[in-house]
């Protein structure tokens, strides 16, 4: 799907707000899932089954998740900066990977919603050690941070996400292709 053809994803907070007349903040209060989605430069890779970029396939899977849990998914996309995406479409920044920043901002949701980080690589911001910065913030969380790795298994990216989940008691899932995001998140949230 091309994101310039879709203004609001069905099931997103904005779509649900239009349908119900509730405000975005009211829906945020009812969210049960916080998805933190990597939109760094490496997501441009076209290693998916049908040759599309990881960006495009992640969009499609997120749409499935939001349709499955309408009004329940609070979506942040992040690269060097984080962006709140009430319309359900991640913002493609395509720059570095600063996970610490968005984890710090999302701490309000700690214990109030399931936190799921979806990424394909190790954080490289803030310089000099983005990975340690992210883990430092994660250690302040009182509840689990679940992770879903996108990409070729066995690399440093997967190892980092494993560590992030284990430090917080979260569950881990590997989605070699973004096409497996939706089942992965549903599996995580349903305990499967």
């Amino acid at each position, binding site marked *: 799907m091309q994101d310039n053809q879709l203004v609001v994803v069905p099931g997103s907070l904005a779509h649900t707000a239009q349908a119900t007349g509730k405000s975005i*903040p*009211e829906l945020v*209060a009812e969210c049960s899932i916080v998805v933190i989605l990597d939109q760094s430069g490496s997501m441009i890779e076209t290693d998916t089954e049908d040759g599309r970029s990881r960006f495009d396939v992640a969009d499609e899977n997120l749409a499935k998740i939001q349709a499955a849990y309408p009004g329940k998914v609070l979506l942040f996309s992040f690269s060097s900066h984080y962006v709140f995406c009430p319309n359900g479409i991640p913002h493609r920044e395509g720059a570095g990977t600063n996970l610490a920043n968005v984890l710090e901002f999302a701490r*309000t949701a700690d*214990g*109030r919603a399931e936190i799921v980080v979806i990424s394909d690589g190790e954080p490289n911001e803030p310089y000099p050690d983005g990975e340690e910065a992210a883990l430092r913030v994660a250690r302040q969380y009182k509840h689990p941070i679940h992770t879903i790795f996108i990409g070729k298994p066995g690399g440093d990216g997967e190892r980092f996400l494993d560590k992030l989940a284990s430090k917080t008691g979260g569950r881990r899932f590997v989605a070699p292709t973004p096409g497996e995001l939706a089942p992965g998140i549903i599996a995580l949230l349903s305990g499967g």
Partner: protein
Amino acid sequence: MQTRFRQLWDLYEVGMTSTTFTIRSAGANVMCAFPFDRSLLDAFKRLVPPSDRRWDDKLKAWWIDPRYIDGVTALAQRYGYIVDRDLTNLDLSGSHVMRAVFRVCYIGGVKDRGNGVQTASGMDDSGKWFYTLPYDVLQEWFGVRADPSLARTLYGVLGAKRTDDADALKRAYRRMARQWHPDVCHERGATEIFQAINDAWATLGDTNKRQMYDFGLELEGETEKQSAPQSLWNPPLRCGDIEADAVQRVGGIQIMKIYGWNDIVNASGQVMVASWTPGATGPTFSWR
């Protein structure tokens, strides 16, 4: 003050003729009375803006701001009237600010009076529209002036502020639920407002949901700048014992700054609920 108004009316009635334009004063209030004359009336209204005049239906006279005394005098003379002017009771030093508790039994909606003046009128316990409550004074009391977005949030629904603690929020909810319960409140939309109050409490009364809601407000503020509401915001309460600074003005009391707003309670401890049924000629009052 009511006694002084009655004295003024007596003076007016004695002196009125078909060609007399009468001007009297009582403290800081100035009254004008004249026979019906369409052209004079139109000229009078052009001279004295709506925010500075008020028709008193009981006295059949106009209260005006004292600064228009000379202007209306000259106007009446131009139209050939004999001006009967007695300002011996004029006391502008009495327009000092007084602090007291004012029993406002019904507050109407905020209206634009022209010249950028926006006010709500308040009814006293005799049924007279005696009070003027400026829009900015009401906004300030309810926190909307400092935070315009508050009016459209769940906090605004409860007449509360984002900084209120749990106990203050609970009190706000109980007060609003009591004032807007459809069994006793017959205002237009009372049922929907009552439901909104309960929905707001369902979120703000839960610590976790409140924190997520506040987070949502922060997110909303980051992603969009909503345009200011086009319609005037109306205060969420319709009556109360209001502790305020006020001045005498235009035949009534103008509230300048609110310090406290309590329910009107009778000797049995019941709280008054005031509402105006659409189509009715006046408000109704219930006790709960």
